């Protein structure tokens, strides 16, 4: 993008002054190099979001922002229901509550190295991944509704994981206010055999090594030492979330006119928070969040079982579980007074700072773990939330690297086999049912996640705690 479009407030903060119907400024947090690399569509989408009714403070984009659906991916926007604020299905996205969780294993790299091949095979055999894969679990109507109301807490009751996992999940593993009865039969049918599946595209399960620490205190609180092996799972609400997104985008696009909302772009389809449709979407979207939390919880147990078979006694403990496609009701201080706001994070991670009441006591001093996915050849990151990010971005940070090239370009440039072989020479084992899928996800197709993380830290959104390098990757 042309940097001339912005007023630069600091090295990593770029403002778009309100013009042409913008109710608030646009603010992008990124280095100059990242801004120059960003698609112009990010600018347009940040501007479009700023025109929506009831938006508070600013329309934000994180350092990994790219062209999304109405909202930019990497977009953050908060709305005040009492000021006519809206909820947007596009501002949450098709993969409701897509997110990341990381577990410690209690193992050192040298302990795992000897078992790596067997571990990769065991995980690939245990974790349903890729197009057409199905889970072991089949839910009847009543069980489906219980799952949609209970999230990861429901999964723990079914024997997937441990009660102590729950405090290490946002919302303690269960999103309140879900309305399973309002979720369509189509959405439930699409989920029927997809519980406990990874999905495809950029979803993955990785065994990783902690290769570098940046904050010894936070690393200790998170249970991380250099040379430790951890497991990270990236996936979402599967077919149920996708179907909810599809249905409500259309409902909201048709209803917007009825609600007198002038949309600069149909993709921004939204409904007033206080309207019947807005309330219905909130209830259904929260059920989608619970579906994602339950799904990651089931995958966690499958992962623990696979580790136990290969390395008996391995103890996988959850560090934290974050969602990066959500709209959540939160209290934030704006102009010196606390306000109840509905914060959309589309491809952005919540990053509560130290002492935030939502966090378990273990993170009181450190702020919440902010888990950032990379590509299968580079690195992933663990950051920690900062108190000052509340004023900067409603306590939000980046979520990943973002693609540098399209899937088609990537598939033209690499063959799946070649990617797998090259990574194997670097000691990284890839397991996937789709060779072309691996090519489309080649590490070179992604931007440099380190540049994104550096910008997030320099902008004061979160601070670096640990860098993780992949050892084994199960690709969806």
């Amino acid at each position, binding site marked *: 993008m042309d940097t001339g479009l912005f007023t630069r407030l600091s090295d990593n903060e770029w403002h778009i002054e309100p013009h042409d119907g913008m109710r608030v400024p646009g603010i992008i947090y990124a280095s100059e190099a990242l801004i120059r690399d960003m698609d112009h569509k990010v600018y347009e989408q940040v501007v479009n979001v700023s025109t929506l009714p009831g938006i508070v403070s600013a329309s934000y984009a994180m350092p990994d922002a790219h062209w999304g*659906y109405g909202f930019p991916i990497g977009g953050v926007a908060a709305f005040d229901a009492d000021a006519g604020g809206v909820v947007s299905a596009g501002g949450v996205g098709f*993969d409701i509550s897509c997110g990341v969780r990381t577990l410690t294993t209690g193992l050192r790299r040298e302990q795992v190295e000897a078992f790596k091949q067997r571990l990769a095979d065991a995980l690939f055999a245990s974790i349903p991944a890729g197009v057409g894969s199905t889970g072991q679990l089949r839910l009847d109507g009543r069980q489906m509704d219980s799952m949609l109301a209970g999230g990861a807490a429901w999964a723990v009751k079914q024997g997937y994981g441990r009660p102590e996992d729950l405090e290490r999940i946002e919302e303690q593993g269960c999103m309140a206010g879900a309305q399973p009865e309002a979720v369509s039969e189509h959405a439930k049918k699409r989920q*029927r055999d997809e519980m406990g599946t990874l999905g495809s*595209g950029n979803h993955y399960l990785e065994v990783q090594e902690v290769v570098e620490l940046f904050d010894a205190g936070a690393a200790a609180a998170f249970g991380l030492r250099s040379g430790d092996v951890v497991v990270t799972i990236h996936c979402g609400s599967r077919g149920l979330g996708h*179907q909810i997104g*599809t249905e409500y985008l259309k409902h909201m696009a*048709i209803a917007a006119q009825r609600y007198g909302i002038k949309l600069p772009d149909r993709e921004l389809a939204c409904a007033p928070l206080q309207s019947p449709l807005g309330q219905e979407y909130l209830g259904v979207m929260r059920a989608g969040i619970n579906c994602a939390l339950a799904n990651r919880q089931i995958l966690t147990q499958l992962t623990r079982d696979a580790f136990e078979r290969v390395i008996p006694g391995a103890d996988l403990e959850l560090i934290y579980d974050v969602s990066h496609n959500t709209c959540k009701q939160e209290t934030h201080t704006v102009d010196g007074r606390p306000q109840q706001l509905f914060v959309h994070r589309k491809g952005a991670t919540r990053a509560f700072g130290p002492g935030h009441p939502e966090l378990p006591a273990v993170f009181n001093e450190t702020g919440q773990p902010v888990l950032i996915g990379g590509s299968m050849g580079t690195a992933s990151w663990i950051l920690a939330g900062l108190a000052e990010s509340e004023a900067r971005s409603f306590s939000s940070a980046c979520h990943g690297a973002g693609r540098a090239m399209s*899937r*088609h370009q990537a598939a033209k440039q690499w063959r799946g086999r070649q990617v797998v072989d090259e990574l194997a020479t670097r000691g990284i084992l890839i397991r996937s049912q*789709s060779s072309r899928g691996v090519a489309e996800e080649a590490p070179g197709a992604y931007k440099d996640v380190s540049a994104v993380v550096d910008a997030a830290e320099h902008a004061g959104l979160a601070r670096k705690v640990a860098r993780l390098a992949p050892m084994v990757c199960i690709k969806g």
Partner: protein
Amino acid sequence: MVTQPADRPVATPRWEHFPHGADVGVRGIGADVASAFEQTAIAMTAVITEPQRVLPQKPLTIVCEGPDAELLLYDWLNTLVYEMATRHMLFSQFHVEIDGERLRASAWGEKIDIPRHQPRVEIKGATFTELDVSQCADGTWRAQCILDV
């Protein structure tokens, strides 16, 4: 850009993919809207696998509605996404009839066979991004949108 072989006249129905940062765009071109919709559906299958690998063994009737051509395309593609996901099928041949706000179609395909189809990515949904149904200067119709994968 991926296209099927271009050694045929412009009026022949055809499909192509167009790039999007994280995802992929599908475009169908035909003599009328119905034909363009059929081609867009083939383009969508081509995101998952090569359409010629999918045997048109079993027909499925699909009915959907939309108050305008774009929303009808959105519904058509998303109904196919739903049917693929819940039936574990892929489709390679389509016959579409459009009557005002209603679409009635037959889609022929088969169950997913992972070794044979080598499916590369699951489609989460067809989106409003770049969603467009319009007539081109040469009189043909074009139907397109970005898929979230």
